[in-house]
């Protein structure tokens, strides 16, 4: 050993002088990690750490969570309400009262001129559940437009739709604890290490202990695919063919669970008849997976005492998204893998509170998985809210994607856009731009004033973000967890709940409908409305939730009265025979005929365009693009392109390339890698004015979710690299 000096230096280490740690569940993805934010003596948020005794993350955080405290001070936050007459005019600052009056008048004017449903409200998966519930009450009960949806249509609609079709209700039946019990895991189009790193860690912990086979279905060699026992590099958009073939093998080899099918399902004959057509040879020609691998995977899955499937956008964002989910459910049902430890079909959700909006926002129906289509549900909710049941529409209105098409066609004239940024997130940006340009009145409510959709707004309302607000969120495993207001919103920005309540006052002059001011009280009101429903939360309140670091629903008032503690984790749905949500308690086995309607690579556009997520970024990058310690890992858009394909086009590592589709073009930097096949490029979707200038986004017939991951492009080498660099830079505002 060699020592630097005989007299030691005093050691100085950075110390952020944290005086107090405050609790919140993370505001990024749907994993639902418990975070503590450290405040210094001046009350500034200076540190974040994982909560060690929270069951979900057990002290861990991903890189986004680790720097989440930097969100509060990030650039581009809105601090004052802004107003203008035309979107080409300059913004003028205004006060809240005038701004809110303007929103009220704008909505009513459009409705009077063009009809009730000509005004659309589009929200998000980012707000707190109490806010969703309040917005739902306001929109359904007072504003009265049926064109009310959330951006969850872009991420979870297929899962919702598939669950509803199979089980009679939305609601993921499994939980993270299932990893610790499973004997086989199939991941369909899910790249946990990048998208849900903490869930991946739970999986990895379990796998190191028990070593179950991991099967990954993904056209790209992701880190999860690379670490899988079996990787099935499937042809994009053909999952349903593979599912049918797996079921074909299971049935033909008698590996199905007849008792479970008998006791729990309807429709087995029709299913058998359809999958009969999908022998592995036929399927292999469609999905590109060889027949032997199909058989091996079918046997491995069906013979496992407990087998689970997870999926994310690889399934959801496809023209067969809803069918894909039903296919996964079919596989689970015929092998008896629902509601038992280690046996489940678990949709790994996208946004932090996508589940909260599914449960409580009334976007697709009425609170707590009630349907507009069912008269009793309308009656019940109208009575509870003290409104006229006839005021509620008899069937749900348009999805977000359809709303935009209607906007383009001039049927929707007004829009209230809340915490979402379609200019970046919807497919085919050119059409979205055209749709937004035509609006007579557009209000954007967002925590960032530089959200690109604000370009087309006439009114901007500055909102609080994440832990500037008070409420709860629900995660992938149906765990409701608490967000506490850790700091105040900047300037005059206000929590979304405050804004909704002020707007409600303007539509509710006679005070007929009650809008509690405090989130804790709203939660109790929701608890009342949840009694006896699938998502029964009547046993919970804010305090109990925080104490338990989140509680999985259902947890009922009866359980609480009995003195039954909420379980730490491991709560499942449909654990008993005949407990599905169709009236007869049985799940449906639904046959899935498959027609490939995707845009296919051809001579003019020879590459598949596959889009997806990077770990360091969150959705439209409005948040993570401003946090240097996240953004630096991929500050500009890039494509993964096969080195052989790149060589053929004369493209070198680090060159800017032009991607051209039938919709438009985009510039990205080329990263040659054998991760992708020679006829595919992978392009992260996070960047504004990039991936979605290219995507087609055909809609799923059931969920209306766009197929972001199956488009065709051609790649062009750019001669003038200096000019390309300038263009690329100009498109990155932050």
């Amino acid at each position, binding site marked *: 050993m060699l020592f630097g000096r005989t007299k030691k230096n005093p050691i100085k280490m950075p110390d952020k002088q944290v005086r107090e740690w405050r609790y919140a569940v993370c505001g990024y993805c749907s994993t639902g990690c418990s975070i503590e934010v450290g405040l210094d003596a001046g009350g500034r948020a200076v540190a974040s750490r994982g909560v060690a005794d929270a069951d979900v993350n057990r002290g861990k955080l991903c890189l986004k969570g680790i720097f989440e405290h930097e969100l509060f001070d990030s650039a581009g936050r809105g601090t004052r309400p802004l107003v203008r007459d035309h979107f080409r005019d300059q913004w003028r600052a205004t006060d809240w009262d005038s701004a809110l009056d303007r929103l009220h008048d704008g909505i009513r004017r459009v409705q009077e001129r063009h009809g009730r449903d000509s005004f659309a409200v589009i929200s998000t998966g980012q707000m707190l559940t109490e806010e969703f519930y309040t917005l739902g009450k306001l929109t359904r009960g007072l504003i009265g437009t049926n064109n009310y949806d959330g951006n969850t249509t872009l991420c979870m609609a297929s899962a919702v739709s598939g669950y509803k079709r199979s089980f009679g209700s939305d609601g993921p039946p499994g939980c993270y604890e299932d990893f610790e019990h499973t004997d086989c895991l199939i991941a369909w189009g899910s790249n946990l290490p990048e998208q849900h790193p903490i869930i991946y*860690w739970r999986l990895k912990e379990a796998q190191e202990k028990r070593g179950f086979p991991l099967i990954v279905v993904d056209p790209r060699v992701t880190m999860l695919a*690379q670490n899988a026992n079996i990787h099935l590099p499937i042809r994009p958009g053909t999952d349903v063919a593979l599912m049918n073939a797996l079921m074909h093998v299971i049935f033909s080899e008698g590996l199905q669970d007849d008792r479970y099918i008998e006791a729990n399902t309807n429709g087995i004959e029709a299913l058998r008849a359809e999958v009969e057509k999908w022998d592995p040879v036929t399927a292999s020609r469609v999905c590109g997976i060889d027949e032997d691998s199909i058989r091996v995977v079918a046997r491995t899955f069906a013979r496992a005492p407990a087998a689970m499937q997870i999926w994310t956008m690889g399934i959801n964002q496809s023209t067969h998204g809803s069918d894909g989910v039903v296919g996964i459910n079919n596989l689970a049902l015929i092998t008896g893998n629902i509601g038992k430890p280690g046996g489940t079909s678990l949709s790994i959700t996208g946004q932090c509170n996508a589940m909260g909006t599914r449960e409580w926002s009334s976007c697709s129906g009425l609170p707590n998985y009630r349907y507009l289509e069912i008269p009793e549900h309308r009656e019940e909710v109208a009575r509870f809210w003290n409104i006229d049941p006839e005021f509620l529409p008899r069937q749900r209105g348009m999805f977000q994607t359809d709303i935009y098409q209607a906007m383009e066609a001039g049927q929707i004239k007004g829009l209230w856009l809340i915490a979402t940024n379609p200019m970046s997130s919807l497919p085919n940006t050119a059409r979205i731009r055209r749709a937004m340009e035509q609006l007579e009145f557009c209000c954007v409510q967002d925590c960032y004033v530089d959200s690109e959709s604000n370009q087309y707004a006439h009114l901007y309302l500055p909102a609080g973000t994440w832990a500037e607000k008070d409420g709860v969120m629900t995660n992938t495993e149906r765990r409701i967890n608490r967000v506490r207001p850790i700091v105040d919103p900047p300037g005059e920005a206000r929590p979304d709940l405050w804004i909704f309540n002020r707007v409600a006052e303007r539509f509710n002059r006679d005070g007929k409908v009650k809008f509690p001011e405090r989130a804790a009280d709203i939660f109790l009101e929701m608890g009342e409305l949840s009694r006896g429903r699938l998502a029964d939360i009547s046993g919970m309140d804010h305090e109990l939730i925080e104490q338990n670091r989140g509680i999985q629903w259902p947890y009922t008032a009866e359980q609480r009265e009995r003195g039954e503690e909420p379980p730490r984790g491991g709560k499942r749905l449909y654990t008993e025979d005949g407990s599905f949500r169709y009236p007869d308690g049985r799940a449906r086995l639904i046959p899935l005929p498959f027609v490939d309607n995707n845009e296919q690579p051809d001579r003019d556009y020879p590459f598949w365009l596959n889009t997806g997520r990077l770990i360091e970024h969150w959705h439209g990058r409005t948040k993570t693009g401003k946090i240097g310690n996240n953004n630096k890992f991929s500050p500009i858009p890039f494509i993964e392109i096969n080195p052989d394909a790149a060589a053929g086009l004369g493209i070198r590592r680090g060159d800017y390339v032009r991607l051209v589709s039938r919709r438009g073009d985009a510039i990205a930097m080329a990263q040659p890698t054998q991760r992708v096949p020679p006829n595919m490029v992978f392009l992260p979707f996070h960047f504004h004015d990039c991936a979605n200038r290219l995507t087609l986004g055909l809609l799923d017939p059931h969920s209306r979710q766009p197929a972001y991951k199956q488009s065709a492009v051609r790649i062009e080498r750019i001669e003038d690299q200096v000019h390309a660099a300038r263009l690329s830079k100009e498109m990155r505002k932050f």
Partner: protein
Amino acid sequence: MFQRREYEPEYALLNDSGSKPVNRYGKPIDTVPPGDPLREQPFVINGEELPQQNPNRYKQHGFHFTADNCIACHACEAACSEKNDLPPHLAFRSVGFVEGGSYPDYRRINISMACNHCDDPVCLRGCPTRAYTKFAEYGAVLQDPDICFGCGYCTWVCPYNAPQLDPVKGQVSKCNMCVDRLEVGLKPACVAACLGKALDFGVIENLPEGRIQAEPAIPGFPRTDITHPNIRFQQMKSIQREMVRVDGTALKYHRTGDREGYRPELDPKKGFRRQWNLGRLLGSHENAHIVFTLGVQAAMGAFLLLVLGGWFGLPAVTALRNSPAWLPSLGLMVLVTAFGLFRLNMHLGKPHRFYRGFYNLRLSPVSREIAGVSAFFAGLLGFTLFNLFDGEWARPLQFLFALLGLLGMGFGGYYMYRLYRIPARPFWDHWHTGASFAGTGLALGSLLLALVALPFGELTRELGQLLATVAGSGLALEGLGLLAHGLAMRTADSEGAASWYEQLTTHGHAYWLRNLLLAGSLLLAGWLAVHGGGPWLFALLAVMALVSAIIGRALFYVLVIPTTMPGAFFWRNRAFVEHARDTGLAEMEPLGVVYERHHRFDLKALLRTIREHSPRQMWEQVREIVLAGPRP
């Protein structure tokens, strides 16, 4: 003290129950034997003295990395940056990767690395200011930014890119092993944050739970023989014969038959197109080194010629000495040396801390170089001063200062060369560096004298032939060195091959221009040595040799590629950093790339230091430098 929570998860707790007696290199794992006085010294963090709680405090600790498991989630890097409050452009820990195979038979290996707290920390040896300490506690190698003067030499010698030179603050900082967490029984923040079950930590050579390998290296990891790093690896899954780097460095790793595993090899990523890139070549932060080395070497060469020529009574030199060109020659030598020293000092992150350059005379070639060059400069100044006088009394003083100058030149010149013989920088680690330095000294030194003699009409045929002969030998020496260097780099299985490639492509035109100029000036010098020639030919030779030297030295600095771990596609990719600076992307704050910048000489800070320290303390400091250095 680090605040330990009431409940800390199992994975975050240090759990070494014992240790091996010695590590694989034969060093005891006990950093100091029981009873050693170092064990009795207080361990003070942020002014707080900590009682020993950790029973393994005096054992060498290190990281264990399971490469099979790393998913490049960046949680380790983020946790580190969060704890150490680092701006985006700095990181003590980074994840890079290499990949191989063909779709879908493809594998990527991610490598997360910070400081390896080496057995033989070359950073500590190299640092001229003694900012580094290897502590007996945990064997941690810690660096004190408050001592550092921002020369960046530690970042040159470290094979792992562990010390981070911050261009904004102008100082180095690095991984501190989270010794505050270790003190309370917790693993470092990066380890506690790991989401792939890849990164672990403990007493070195101990296997973490569930691990069976503790190999010293994996593909992409730099040589371990330079420093004996305290990191161990597990990598069990089969990987391809060739693993390529995804950053811009033109290297891949090729499997060898032996236990060595993988060796670096050229991967010509951008083809073989020859380019100019003059802006990048001449606009770099290393310009100060170009000015310093060329200036000082020229002055040294001229000094050597004048002094030795005088001592040996060479008629041409004696004639010069008695001419009006004599004092201007000396004056110009003083000027170029002074300017070189000034530029060198002003390129430091903290120029006002210049005096700290001498602190590590016992170990650092940089300190010795600075000391030697200072002695040379003092000798040159004295020599020049006493040449202003004619009296007999001045002669012995001239002699004494000449002697001092020569000694300083020998010592400083040697260490000026030695300090570039860095194993982690193969492009420099070759005798051509010495040949180039000496050759430059002879060539530019003689031409400096010729240029001064010219306007005075004192460039006699005799002097001209002498100077042309010396310049020619210098140029020949440099040329020979370059030939040997080229041959060695072309076939090197090291980062040297990538440097060679960049020399032929990115800076290909400049490289060939230099070669042409060098060959041309060598021929011209030979002609002048034999036949003599008029002033214009000498002027031409001087210009050609100077331009060749400037381009050559610029290439020397810009081409070096350290043996660091591979980067990612954006982060830790030198090619992207250069691109971001060239295109202005770096202006965006959250990009993680900043521009190089100059730092002002903070006179107030210097005066404050002088005021706050008594002469006695200063004397103590000098004593300490000379007598009480680091110990084995």
